[in-house]
């Protein structure tokens, strides 16, 4: 027990004493994910939107005096154009080249004709909006103009409303916000979390076990009277702490950038999860990290070098990814049997937590099973540390 703490202390001192290691394993992954997703999200948005405070520059012909004040409230700098209709090539050229964002053409005597018009009798007065769909600013100008005109049309001939006050007053959409968000997150997040845990573990475990073996430093530990089990458990616990940090960093990077990636359309529903959900999630993640670290430690202990260990670990990643993807395709059931298979139970239980369908008993079983699995793997690792074939094979 005492020696196990000594080993843990040393492993943590090794990790935290190395600024570069801390940066590359615990900070960089999260930072990279955050930057990547944020840039991706912003790139997407820039495609479809304009900067918030952009003032469009547009021409207007025949601006009705009644509408002048409300038109001037739009984020548009109007310039009166009093050429004839159709618009001259000169103006259309400017719009095509992006120098102007558009042209709004009211017909002559628009207000009178419009107010006098009866539905279904002859042609209604036509307002024309020239724009350039390739320029997002021009597109924004068009939407603003259309919205303005729609409102005008509605206010002139309002016969009935649909869902009046939606958004601000009533909530007509009865789908629960939880289940929409939950389904999306429930499918994706377990896989993300599993891969983050995995990458956190592979960042440190092969180096700490296969690396020490390769460099001959673990042999120095083996000539001390320390119990092999203390070494095995000390390694597993300390590596789990570090892997948890690395995984957490990636996790935060994702969570913080998700809202940007999803734009405003999707309201990130993290707020709908309760403290209990988070607590259960943490317990599952913790137990998953222990199992993953133990598996990777075993593989590393069997390998002769860090390189060999990394190669041997690759298939394990495939297994994890495949298992994690099952819920996304609604494959693989939950239930008591699933709870008994380490790692698979993590995926299913996390899926349950994110889709608000978890039961505390599932989580408890999952965590216990994973702890037991980690314990058994720790026992095997102890055996490997005691085996001269494993530790001193040439």
């Amino acid at each position, binding site marked *: 027990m005492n020696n196990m703490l000594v080993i843990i202390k040393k492993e943590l001192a090794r990790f935290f004493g190395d600024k570069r290691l801390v940066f590359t394993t615990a900070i960089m992954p999260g930072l990279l994910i955050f930057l990547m997703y944020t840039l991706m999200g912003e790139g997407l948005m820039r495609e479809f939107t304009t900067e918030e405070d952009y003032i469009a520059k547009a021409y207007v012909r025949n601006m009705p005096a009644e509408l002048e004040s409300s038109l001037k409230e739009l984020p548009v700098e109007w310039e009166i154009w009093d050429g004839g209709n159709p618009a001259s090539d000169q103006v259309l050229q400017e719009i095509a080249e992006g120098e102007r964002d558009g042209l709004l053409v009211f017909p002559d005597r628009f207000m009178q004709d419009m107010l006098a018009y009866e539905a279904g009798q002859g042609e209604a007065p036509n307002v024309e909006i020239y724009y350039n769909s390739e320029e997002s600013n021009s597109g924004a100008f068009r939407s603003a103009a259309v919205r303005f005109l729609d409102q005008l049309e509605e206010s002139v001939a309002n016969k009935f409303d649909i869902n009046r006050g939606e958004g601000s007053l009533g909530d007509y959409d009865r789908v629960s916000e939880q289940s929409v968000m939950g389904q999306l997150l429930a499918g994706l997040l377990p896989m993300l979390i599993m891969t983050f845990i995995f990458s956190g573990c592979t960042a440190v475990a092969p180096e700490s076990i296969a690396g020490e073996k390769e460099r001959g*430093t673990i042999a120095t530990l083996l*000539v001390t009277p320390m119990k092999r089990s203390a070494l095995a458990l000390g390694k597993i616990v300390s590596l789990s702490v570090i892997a948890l940090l690395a995984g957490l960093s990636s996790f935060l990077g994702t969570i913080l950038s998700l809202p940007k990636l999803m734009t405003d359309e999707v309201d990130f529903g993290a707020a709908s999860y309760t403290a209990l959900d988070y607590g259960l999630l943490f317990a599952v993640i913790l137990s998953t990290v222990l199992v993953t670290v133990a598996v990777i430690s075993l593989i590393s202990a069997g390998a002769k070098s860090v390189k060999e260990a990394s190669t041997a670990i690759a298939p394990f990643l495939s297994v994890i990814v495949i298992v994690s993807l099952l819920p996304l395709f609604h494959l693989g059931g939950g239930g008591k049997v699933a709870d008994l298979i380490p790692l698979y139970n993590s995926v299913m239980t996390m899926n349950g937590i994110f889709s608000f369908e978890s039961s505390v008993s599932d989580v408890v079983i999952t965590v216990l099973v994973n702890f037991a699995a980690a314990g058994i793997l720790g026992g095997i690792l102890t055996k490997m540390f005691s085996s001269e074939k494993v*530790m001193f094979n040439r």
Partner: protein
Amino acid sequence: MEELIQVKELCKTFKLSAKQQKLEKTKEKTKVAVDGLSFTAYKGEVFGLLGPNGAGKTTTLRMLATLIRPDSGDALLDGVSVTKDPETVRSRIGFLTSELKLEDFFSPNYLFQFFASLYGVPQDKALARREELFSRFGIDRFAEVKVGDLSTGMKQKVSLVISLVHDPDIIIFDEPTNGLDVLTAKVVTDFLLDLRAQGKTILLSTHIFSLIEKICDRVGIMISGKMAVCDTLEKICGGKSLEDRFFEVYREKAGDLE
């Protein structure tokens, strides 16, 4: 005289992989590294295992240090069996070979403290011992330098000092002066003589005759995993130089083997 190291009929056979078979240029699937080896080292003496490359010296010392298990036979160190109670054996001996490396990342200070904890040395004793050993080997000036940045000789000295954190009564060294320059080698051999003066029992292996002549009380000449001769230095040499005697013994035994 107290028999501090008793080696009885030790045997060790390695399975050879295909790769090793090629390296050793043999078709045999196994290699008998140590073959019924017995000898005794007494308290307070320096015992030297002398032998050519591949004689089985390192394998023997590793079995005594409990890093590998003998196939048969046993050894008692201070009365404790390497096969039955390896943990106690490890707490009683200091074992050093060039294969045991220290982590480059840490400083001698940190590592000394770390290994002192693993050996269960009380804090105040550890500090006093560090003080003494570091100044003796000139490590004190480098006490906070990462091991990775030390010279080969300084690294060896740190390894040596750390293998003795717990002040063991039995010290087992595989090739103690390998890779050291004459100055550093002398520091090490002088230190071994000091340890003997303190009543420690030292078992070392080497293929360097002069080292044996300088510090060993008794010698065992190992050839092909077997003990060819084992006696005090004077009796083995019988007036001749150790080198001449070694070749005589070797011719006899190698002749036997053919």
